[in-house]
């Protein structure tokens, strides 16, 4: 067998090879400054990680139920070990590992072409960050307990910050990076609280549910808050669209396929902790609402990356909703398929942006004859997302909707159905506007991207087209059964998806239905475009938080500082008085000594 090494070795290679690469790129300045060598090192390491993941997956498929845990003591304190660190290889972590490394490898290869115009030092830095990200994400994925998962969670947050702010010279990018960081950190407070409560409740960091139902609920809510931040659920989704300020391949890897999915992964991984009824209901409804809400906003975006960003929010909503409804398989399956086709879509968008040097759909147009491969692969991704039968999204989305239908959760089901229609519509809109629209000066100059960019597109398109058929093996590894059957729900959803595509064709492709006929929806569009949630946060921050800070600041300045100043003033005044005692005159000191002697002697006599 070619994968002769023991599985643990493969896992450690997948984990530490990227870490070593990041370290080398970070420390060896000449390597980084040259750009290209660092990039090749990073890509090589990513390929190695991918190979390790494939080896592990093959092994896992050979014996689906097996679980391999290897840990070492961490945080030893007074004889007992507070926590452990290590790797856990099972039916959940191994497929996720493959998803991460596959998308990462594709994205890195793509970046070789996409980022080629960057100055060499920035180019090297970029790949250093990528290696760091793979290490962080693998730490998270392979975590054997919640604490290590949290460490990885924060590390990917850091790399996300670094990569969003990659063009740090641009003020908007720097702001977006800070916004992403702050928003997710705010949510991570929930994670910290959850982990601490978990330790209090169970004395460890494993993912067994605590017996106390109240604590169980609070742990679940705390962790879910972190999920809302990381996986961009309403109302903490605001950072994700702004995160599009980062390079497009970064958006593909972090903000579409893997990092934002970490929240969903957490729910799957530590599922027992999310089993409190309240938490599950919140997940179901909030996920469904996010799916619909983000989809409506996606419809009116004019920036191709923003459309995809809101689409990501929406699809993550699907997953969260499914997990809330108890369909772990549905959420996890959709996570993997979504990773494939959304990464594909982002890379396709990157290819287009690279060609026309603009994010705006208005600057694109009749690109189809110029960039056939990009267009074809993008269309495959779009159809997969829209849920066209036979492609990846169709199977996983169907599974989610079926699960909701089984649980008779009509409200969320309705929202998800509407979202499915809108998804198809906005993807159709993007395709028609970008590839089959009018010719412009920019589209005339566009040309197909180089081989390093096209090859990942083709690979991911193949995955996106076929991923749906791996549901059975995934389910087997996961330990559940999965049979695909197209029921009434699936039929309706498919019909809605096709209807959305048709409507998009009529409006943007054929032009037979003018856009103005949707004028009655204009208020919705305006609301969506206006960033109402952002404004709400701004209001909350400026008025409430700053007001509170002002009040506390006033208290601190005038009351607390006042007391301190009063004390200081009293000391100075007292000192001024007391220093008069020091006359510098010898006889006064003698008098003092005499007085002391008299007092002591008198006391001695009278005692």
């Amino acid at each position, binding site marked *: 067998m070619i994968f002769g090494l023991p599985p643990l070795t493969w896992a450690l290679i997948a984990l530490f090879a990227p870490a070593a690469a990041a370290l080398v790129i970070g420390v060896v300045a000449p390597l980084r400054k040259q750009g290209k060598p660092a990039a090749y090192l990073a890509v090589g390491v990513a390929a190695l990680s991918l190979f390790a993941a494939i080896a592990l997956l093959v092994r896992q498929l050979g014996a689906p139920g097996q679980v391999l845990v290897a840990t070492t003591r961490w945080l030893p304190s007074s004889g007992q070990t507070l926590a452990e660190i290590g790797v856990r290889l099972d039916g959940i972590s191994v497929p996720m590992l493959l998803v991460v490394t596959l998308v990462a490898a594709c994205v890195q290869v793509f970046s070789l072409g996409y980022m080629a115009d960057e100055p060499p030092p920035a180019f090297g830095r970029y790949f250093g960050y990528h290696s760091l990200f793979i290490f962080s994400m693998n730490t998270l994925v392979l975590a054997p307990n919640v604490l290590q998962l949290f460490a990885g969670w924060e590390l990917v947050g850091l790399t996300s910050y670094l990569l969003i702010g990659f063009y740090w010279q641009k003020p908007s990018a720097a702001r977006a990076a800070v916004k992403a960081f702050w928003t997710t950190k705010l949510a991570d407070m929930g994670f910290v609280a959850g982990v601490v409560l978990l330790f209090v409740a169970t004395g460890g960091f494993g993912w067994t549910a605590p017996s106390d139902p109240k604590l169980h609920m609070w742990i679940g809510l705390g962790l879910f808050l972190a999920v809302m931040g990381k996986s961009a659920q309403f109302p903490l989704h605001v950072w994700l669209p702004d995160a599009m300020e980062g390079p497009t391949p970064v958006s593909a890897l972090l903000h579409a396929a893997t990092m934002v999915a970490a929240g969903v992964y957490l729910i799957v991984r530590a599922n027992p902790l999310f089993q409190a009824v309240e938490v599950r209901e919140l997940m179901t409804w909030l996920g469904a609402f996010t799916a619909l809400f983000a989809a409506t906003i996606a419809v009116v975006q004019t920036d191709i990356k923003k459309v995809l960003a809101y689409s990501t929010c929406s699809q993550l909503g699907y997953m969260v909703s499914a997990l809330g409804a108890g369909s772990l398989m549905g959420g996890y399956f959709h996570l993997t398929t979504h990773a494939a086709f959304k990464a594909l879509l982002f890379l396709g968008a990157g290819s287009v942006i690279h060609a026309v040097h603009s994010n705006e759909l208005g600057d694109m147009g009749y690109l189809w004859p110029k960039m056939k491969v990009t267009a074809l692969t993008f269309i495959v991704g779009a159809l997969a997302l829209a849920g066209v039968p036979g492609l990846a999204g169709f199977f996983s989305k169907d599974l989610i909707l079926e699960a909701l239908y089984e649980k008779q959760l009509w409200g969320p089901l309705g929202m998800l159905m509407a979202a499915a229609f809108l998804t198809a519509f906005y993807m159709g809109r993007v395709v028609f506007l970008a590839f089959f629209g009018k010719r412009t000066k920019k589209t005339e100059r566009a040309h197909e991207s180089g081989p390093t960019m096209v090859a990942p597109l083709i690979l991911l398109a193949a995955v996106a087209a076929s991923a749906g058929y791996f549901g059975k093996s995934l389910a087997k590894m996961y330990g559940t059964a999965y049979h695909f059957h197209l029921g009434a729900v699936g039929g309706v959803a498919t019909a809605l998806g096709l209807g959305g595509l048709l409507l998009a064709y009529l409006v943007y492709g054929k032009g037979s239905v003018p856009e103005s006929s949707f004028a009655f929806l204009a208020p919705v569009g305006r609301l969506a475009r206006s960033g109402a949630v952002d404004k709400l946060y701004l209001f909350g921050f400026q008025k409430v938080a700053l007001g509170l800070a002002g009040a506390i600041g006033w208290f601190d300045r005038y009351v607390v500082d006042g007391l301190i100043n009063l004390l200081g003033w009293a000391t100075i005044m007292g000192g001024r008085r*007391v*220093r*008069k*005692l*020091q*006359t*510098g*005159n*010898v*006889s006064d000191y*003698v*008098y003092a000594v*005499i007085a002391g002697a008299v007092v002591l002697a008198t006391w001695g006599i009278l005692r």
Partner: protein
Amino acid sequence: MSLQPLLLLSAALFCVGIYGVVSRRNAVGILLSVELMMNAVNINLVGFAHYHASHVGQVFAVFSIALTVAEVVVGLALVILLSRARKDIAVDSAEALRG
């Protein structure tokens, strides 16, 4: 005869010395008064030695005398220094330590 008159004599001598220390302005005058006080101390020591018929009090009186000599030597050196620096050895004109 009891020891008390001797102690009273010593106390009186000491207080005279105190009076001199406080009332004198001249630094040498103060040193003289300090000598008086030390002398009172010596009388006390010798008196108690006599009372106990012991040699220890006398030994300490010798120590005390040697200390006094050392003190006088350094004190006079300081007074000379002061007189050089200020052309004046009146102690109340040297009040640089006033707060």
